[in-house]
């Protein structure tokens, strides 16, 4: 008799935490990087890639158990993917739904792509400010689309 093992690909629902949805396919891992989520991050995290989506064709989803992202962290997600939605789950119910939006100011997270920028030769925090559709380095004054900063 042939033994058949069924391993479902779907990820269990979370009771409390954050679900980041509508991430462009392939950018899920970048979202984790932007949020500073790595092996030392205390909570369980799932990245589901290439999920069929009516809106995007394919999308990535990130689920973070037990941690409700605050607005500042939610805005960082928009640097990776401006279409992402952030769902805060409490007691298995959707408690809050946010659309990611570019942050007014980001300190210390991003690296300036301008090789001649002083932040790439001095040991210091970078700083970017929202300027129209892009982010401007507070030091070298160059403006970049958010996609170039991640």
């Amino acid at each position, binding site marked *: 008799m042939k033994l058949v093992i069924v391993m479902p690909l779907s990820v269990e629902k979370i009771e409390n935490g954050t679900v980041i949805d509508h991430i462009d396919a392939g950018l899920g891992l970048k979202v984790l990087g932007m949020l500073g989520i790595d092996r030392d991050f205390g909570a369980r995290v799932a990245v589901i890639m290439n999920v069929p989506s009516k809106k995007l064709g394919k999308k990535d989803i990130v689920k973070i158990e037990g941690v409700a992202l605050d607005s500042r962290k939610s805005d960082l997600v928009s640097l990776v993917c401006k279409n992402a939605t952030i769902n805060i789950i409490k007691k298995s119910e959707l408690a809050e739904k946010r659309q990611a939006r570019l942050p007014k100011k980001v300190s210390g997270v991003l690296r300036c792509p*301008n090789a*001649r*920028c*002083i*932040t790439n030769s*001095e040991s*210091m925090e970078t700083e970017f400010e929202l300027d129209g559709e892009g982010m401007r380095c*507070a030091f*070298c*004054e160059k403006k970049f689309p958010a996609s170039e900063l991640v």
Partner: protein
Amino acid sequence: MEGLISIRDCEKKDLEEYLKLAEKMEALLKSGKKIVDNKIVATMFFEPSTRTNMSFQAAAKRLGADVISFNSESSSSKKGESLIDTVKIIDGYADVLVIRHPGEGAARVADRAAKHPVVNAGDGGNQHPTQTLIDLYTIKKCKGEIEGLNVQLVGDLKHARAMRSLVLGLAMFGARITLVSPKGLEMDREIIEEARGRHKADIEELNAIDLSDCDVLYVCRVQKERFADQYEAAKVQHEFRISEEYLENAKAGMIILHPLPKIDEIPEAVDESPMARYFQQAKYGVPVRMAVLGRMLGAV
């Protein structure tokens, strides 16, 4: 007192105030009077400079301030000291810090680290705000006004920090700006869009020099070191050389400016022409920088 880091931080009224002060400083220079006592200006040049460094020193001394200077070749930065530490230390010795550094944004870093005002004397390819003040002052002195003039910027507009600052300054004063540069050395789109967006600048881009409607021809050198192919560099340099024949077709009253040093983009014979105002422009470096330092020192 705030420092002077970038033209992007300034409004037209700030620039106008500096230009008015520079006029007063010219009168002060003639009188020989000193208006500053017991103050120290530190000039911190992390890369070579002749005109900017010496004119800042001359300006400080003409005001009556003492000058301490920094030689990056023999300084602790060579031993690995951070820029922030160097600035904090020199900030303890002086009342104003003048800084030139190859790192873009270095003056902003210094400004945040220092308690005293910081003046940006050029940070990489980013900004050179006192050069812009000198350029605007020279145009005003030679032409009487800036608004409505057709100012043609010619040369390597991509790498020249003086040009990046100047476009914004000219835009604030309502000049008509024409940009002429070799292919690949055009001014950053971002600066053009900013000048148009923030200051409603009238900017035209051309492939070749046209002096028929030019009031101010502002030339900067083509930086040959940026070209992989030196034959191509020489070709471009020749194409953008301001010959005497070119000037025969110039609009009456046109003036020629250059941030200097000039190499061969303007032939020596042109130096004698009444159009050539670049040496006068360099000389205005002293009263303009007196105005900036005088203001930072609270003397004007």
